[in-house]
């Protein structure tokens, strides 16, 4: 049981490492859908 729990947690850890970063998400967007940096700044400020 403990081994199964450790393996489950290791799976989450691996998922966090390979999870898409913000840069990859932005690159995956179509140019029309991707917010320009200036828009991001205005939205987040």
């Amino acid at each position, binding site marked *: 049981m403990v081994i199964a*729990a*450790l393996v489950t947690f290791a799976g989450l*850890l691996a998922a966090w*490492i390979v*999870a898409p970063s913000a*840069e990859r998400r932005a690159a995956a967007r179509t140019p029309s859908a991707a917010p320009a*940096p200036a828009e991001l700044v205005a*939205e*987040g400020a």
Partner: protein
Amino acid sequence: MATINAGDTAWVLISSALVMLMTPGLALFYGGLVRRKNVLSTIMHSFFILGLVSVTWVLWGYSLAFGPDAGGGLIGRLDWLGLEGVTGAPSDTYAPTVPHLAFMAFQMMFAIITPALISGSFAERKRFKAFVLFAVAWSTLVYAPIAHWVWSPHGWLAGLGVLDFAGGTVVHLSSGVAALVAALFIGRRTGLIEAATEPHDVPMTVLGAGLLWFGWFGFNAGSALGANGVAATAFVTTNTAAAMAAITWVTISWLHRGTPSVLGAAIGAVAGLVAITPAAGFVTPAASILIGAGVAIVCYGASQLRLRSHIDDALDVFAVHGVGGAFGALATGVFATVAVNAAGRDGLLGGAPFQVILQLVAIGVVALYSATVTAGILFVVNLIVPIRVPHAEEEAGLDLAQHGEIAYQP
């Protein structure tokens, strides 16, 4: 034969819940201090750790920190991996009147808040993914060993006679020093003209400070591990030190800057709570007044020095937790008395000046170990995932860039 006491068990369980509330309280305390574009990310760093360290503590953290000694008082063995053998029966070693699982849960809440404290120093520019990896490594490689040194009866600092009632060295000094190292490692925030930014929501920070103060009764009075006179002493000294530090900090800032700062009251209270943590169950209420006043002066000075430096410890974690933790550990060596707690030791004023030397040794060793290992962890994590976000993301704010959410609708 250890026997469960209902009153002690109830107190330790409710104290665990009180300490748990401190981490969301810390999230609000830090969340109010940052700019509005980073409030969610700042809150998330504490809230996610509540989940993350809860799991790692059950899997391996508790065993490393409190398990049977692996040798030399340096670290626990993995006998209790996944809490195997940790049951509802009392432990032979810890808190003999409460279930072992209750003691474990109480300690878990300490393990959770400690890495969350560090998050304030490199706020507003760190990548969430990198922080998650950092938190797992730090709680395993820094927190667990130091907890073993100080709080396991076989720990080498405990064996020397070092006093730390509720975590002045284990929690606050270790995280404060790590925060300083993290701030130096990641560098200053982009476009920071002045040494500090204006808090976006002071009421949120004051609410967070209030929750921290409330939860700290569990942190310190709960560390008596029983519903008894030491718990009552720790409760009173905790409240008194926080109160004295709050009003002293406000007074200093009033004299220095011309206004009685609300933010100063909140930060001063937290500094007082930090400093009384190692001393709470070992000193008298009168001593806690002196500790509260002293830490307010010292931490206020440290925060002013930080403002004049080029170190961008964004939320002054080192000035409050590092300096306050060290001050409290030293003050414990001065004011501790067995008249308050027969299980403790006398300090300088009780005719035992050597206790001050022991406390200084603990401060030096914990600071050095935390600084060194934290730097190593940051270096390795940075190789796997860059810790700092790109310039455009920092400009946009981490809420939107890292989490795809904003705190406040336009």
